[in-house]
């Protein structure tokens, strides 16, 4: 096991602990989706993006758009850890007059764009990627989309422009956890064959286990997959990943743990964490 892998795997467990903790304490949050995408955010912010509080206000850097805005607890947790604000601030999640509201807002340091209404983030990411092309910058734009979000037509409008303008500096990551608030994505409104869809819109597509640190590190180091083409990474994930009784349970889309469930989740995560001591 490489140092990087061990370091990041431990972080993922710590992040999961924070996610459950802040959702439990604030009494609201999107537990399942935050747990499915946290490994992706972990690898991006700690190994790929090089976005720091110091360079955040500059233009010449990589960008990250959190289009699946409801999974905000994952984003706040990672931004906190990479130094954008103190852990104390996170405790105000959902409190009256707190900046830490239930969807990403630029009032919180480190958040690039206000999201929450679905199907918006990819167009914004296309605009950012286009601006970088105009500036002849080599930096990249990453956008994380939920799989339920892909029913929004505006996502596919954005794909047409990404392809037209040959945005090989744009990387779309789909958190493919197969569940949305009503049920399975394929029952609610089928989006398969997803790889073929992205390919037909001009993307080069690869699959990854989105809860596997090593696979994520490898895939993000490979982008763009093809010059002059935007990249799509379909990250197969488990909704609620890392806490056994939450995994793949539809009800945990935005369920808050009870006292008992919270204790159970922390015991499970601490047990896994102890192996990294």
């Amino acid at each position, binding site marked *: 096991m490489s140092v990087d892998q061990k370091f990041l795997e431990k972080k993922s467990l710590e992040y999961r602990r924070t996610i459950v903790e802040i959702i439990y304490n604030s009494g609201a949050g999107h537990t399942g989706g935050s747990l499915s995408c946290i490994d992706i955010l972990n690898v991006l912010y700690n190994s790929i993006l090089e976005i720091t509080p110091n360079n955040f206000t500059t*233009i010449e850097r990589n*960008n990250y758009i959190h289009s699946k805005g409801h999974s905000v607890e994952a984003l706040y947790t990672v931004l906190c850890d990479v130094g954008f604000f103190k852990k104390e601030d996170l405790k105000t999640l959902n409190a009256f007059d707190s900046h830490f509201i239930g969807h990403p807002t*630029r009032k919180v340091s480190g958040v*690039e*764009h*206000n*999201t*929450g*209404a679905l*199907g*918006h983030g*990819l*167009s*914004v*990411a*296309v*605009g*950012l*990627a*286009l*601006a*970088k092309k*105009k*500036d002849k910058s080599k930096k990249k734009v990453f956008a994380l989309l939920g799989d339920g979000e892909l029913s929004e*037509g*505006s996502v596919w*409008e*954005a794909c*047409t*422009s990404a392809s037209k*303008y040959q945005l090989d500096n744009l990387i779309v990551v789909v958190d493919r956890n197969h569940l949305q608030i009503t049920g399975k994505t394929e029952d609610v409104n089928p989006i398969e064959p997803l790889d073929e869809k992205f390919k037909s819109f001009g993307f080069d597509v690869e699959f990854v286990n989105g809860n596997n640190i090593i696979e994520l590190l490898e895939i993000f180091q490979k982008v763009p997959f093809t010059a002059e083409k935007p990249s799509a990474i379909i990250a197969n994930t488990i909704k609620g990943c890392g806490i056994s009784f939450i995994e793949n349970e539809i009800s945990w889309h935005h369920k808050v743990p009870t006292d008992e469930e919270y204790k159970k989740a922390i015991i499970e995560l601490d047990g896994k964490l102890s192996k990294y001591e």
Partner: protein
Amino acid sequence: MNNIGKPNLEIFADTLLDQAKINQDILVVTSDSRGSGKLVNFGKELPDQIIEVGIAEQNLVGISAGLSAGGKKVFGVSPASFLTARSIEQIKNDICYSNQPVVLVGISAGISYGQLGSTHHSIHDFASLRTFNNISIVAPADNLEASEVIKASVGYDKPLYIRYGKKPMMNIHSPGTNFQIGKAITVSEGEDITLVSSGETVQRAVLAGEILKTKGINPTIISMHTIKPFDKDIFIKMAKKSKVLISIEEHSIYGGLGEQCANIIAQNKINLDFKILGIPDEYIVNGSQADVLDHYNMSPEKIAALSALMLG
């Protein structure tokens, strides 16, 4: 008799081209709308500064927001009817809430597309956008306003919506008239009656004023080019010295200029006889922009007659 200028849309396109030639960070985003936006020439002269998204207004607004976040000064240009309805959520979230100082240009606004029907009319844009925090709304009246607002918009640090019509407009203001976003222009100052208007109906107010003058009535005429932020100071000053006030707009009578005036009158102890002229809540009559405005009592003759009647 009156000095007729160019369509405001042409002035917009010419001014924007001039500005973009000296500032490479100015980018235009169109949705198969460069022809209607008079931007064909812009596309030929500055091909690297125009982005074409096809018929996809939501994408146009989202991409504009992203380009702006990437440090560009962006003009998103699309028919007002689609721009401010189809992509309203992108305007709300990606522009206003995210505070991207994009200039959204609604072309062929109001009932410029007269006979094309309600799908192509934008008589809702003031009302819907007024409820969004953090966006300014401008409807230029004549060529001077049409040009000055573009020059002002380049350095404007907030989201901005500007609507333009297609028909040649009367030159109302003399060259050199001071224009500022948020500051109404008093076209003429009279007594007893005030006509407040925005955009392409201002020339109708001015022509009504000429009719009134032949009857010995001198109206105050205000071009309220900025719907938001509304110039309360000038409005209250003129309203307080008037017995009669009429608002005239190429917009629904709900939620636009007239209701903004009513709001201020009602909350500032202003006593006067007040009437809102605009498009009523009904299936709109078919016709050209001029015919429709005339039909809904906004011809200069009808505005003058109403003014005289209200003055008693």
